[in-house]
């Protein structure tokens, strides 16, 4: 089953068929999610309307960690089983993960100015997210730094695995250190402490972000496979 889907041609057929449905599902969750988040959710008694930034910020931050985790798993699969699609997947995820991390940092900064009175503080969660952003950039640069793409792919995969130590540090940074960033309020052992009226739009947005991510990754992977084929054809043409 694992090997059945390793075939790039089969993957391309499958993903082409699945993509429109994923996109439709993403739009169908994103639109109500945005409506609830921006118009029809309660105003926070302390934060006022600024709380609405949270509906973008939190899903982006979750996606930033999720992307890195998927990228690290895909890198491990690519390194161990030489799975060609896993490598294409890791390559396609990296820029998306960097974008989500950037979005989380920017929205957090925009929220921090009115709430904390500052754009940026050097607390554990913010610093470790910034480090995650640099890890994504390092991964992307390392991949591009070699003349032989296969060598870049393997080196970058090792880097992705080494950098994975940062993910649990980010997740638990707010529990381990006493910081300005508030601790987790949704994913915790004793159930969410966030109000249900805010939880619904948040979950809608999180699902929408995830679907959007799946759609973008499939699209990017298909494009990447085509680019590889073009490269092979060019080589053949040059050799002939």
């Amino acid at each position, binding site marked *: 089953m694992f090997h059945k889907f390793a075939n790039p041609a089969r993957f391309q057929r499958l993903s082409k068929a699945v993509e429109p449905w994923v996109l439709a599902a993403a739009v169908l969750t994103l639109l109500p999610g945005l409506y609830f988040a921006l118009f029809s959710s309660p105003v926070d008694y302390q934060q006022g309307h600024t709380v609405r930034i949270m509906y973008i910020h939190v899903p982006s931050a979750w996606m930033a960690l999720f992307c890195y985790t998927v990228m690290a798993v895909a890198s491990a699969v690519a390194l161990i089983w030489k799975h060609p699609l896993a490598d294409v997947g890791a390559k396609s995820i990296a820029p998306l993960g960097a974008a989500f991390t950037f979005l989380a940092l920017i929205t957090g900064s925009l929220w921090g100015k009115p709430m904390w009175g500052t754009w940026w503080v050097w607390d554990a969660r913010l*610093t470790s997210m910034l*480090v995650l952003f*640099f*890890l994504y*950039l*390092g991964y992307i*640069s*390392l991949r591009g*730094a*070699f*003349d032989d793409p296969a*060598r*870049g792919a*393997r*080196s970058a995969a*090792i*880097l992705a*695995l*080494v*950098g994975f*130590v*940062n993910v649990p*540090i980010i997740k638990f940074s707010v529990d381990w250190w006493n910081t300005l960033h508030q601790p987790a309020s949704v994913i915790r052992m004793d159930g969410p402490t966030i109000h249900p009226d805010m939880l619904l739009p948040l979950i809608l947005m999180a699902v929408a972000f995830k679907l959007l991510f799946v759609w973008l990754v499939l699209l990017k992977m298909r494009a990447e496979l085509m680019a590889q084929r073009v490269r092979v054809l060019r080589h053949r043409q040059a050799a002939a």
Partner: protein
Amino acid sequence: MMGAVAVFRREMRLALRQGADSAMVVAFFVIAVVLFPLGIGPEPNTLAKIGPGVVWVAALMAAMLSMERLFQADYEDGSLELLTLAPMPLEITVLAKIAVHWLTTGLPLIVVSPLLAVMMNVPADGWPVLIASLALGTPILSLLGAVGAALVLGARRGGVLLSLLILPLAVPVLIFGAGAVDAALTGGNAKVNLLLEGAMLLGCLALCPWAAAAAVREAVA
């Protein structure tokens, strides 16, 4: 074991015969620290406050500077390939190279650090902790740097790339290293920071040789 000793002796001899490398790292370290009083102003209290952090950042930069040559020369003349083919585990070879790297670059940094602490007006109470934190921290930099140096073998602009890859990972070392000295000076608990640094050192010691060896194998494959 014999092989590890042989690699260690070879590396040591190479490093000592071209001692310029170690001297350059130390010179960079000193100059980088000296720039701060010139740039910020010689106000003693300000210097004392930023001193431990500046010494640590400069040590980090100096370590990065020397990192690239860890595998580069062996990679270029082909001896890295022979070391990979040798019957002893590549992880041991890598560990021996890292040990030599630390002895020839990390150790000199520790030796000159009290001098810089004096120049930065850091109170005498902070010196032992600064030395202890550097003693625990610089081996981590060598271990992490070895992973980076192996990953960028044969890459374009490897030196800059190496810093981009390793500096983010070295952030915790910097935080706890400089934090320990700060804690000692402000009456906090320096021991906690040093213990965390020690834990990181043990973790890196266990994991980094594997990652670096895997990267070397990819480079010579």
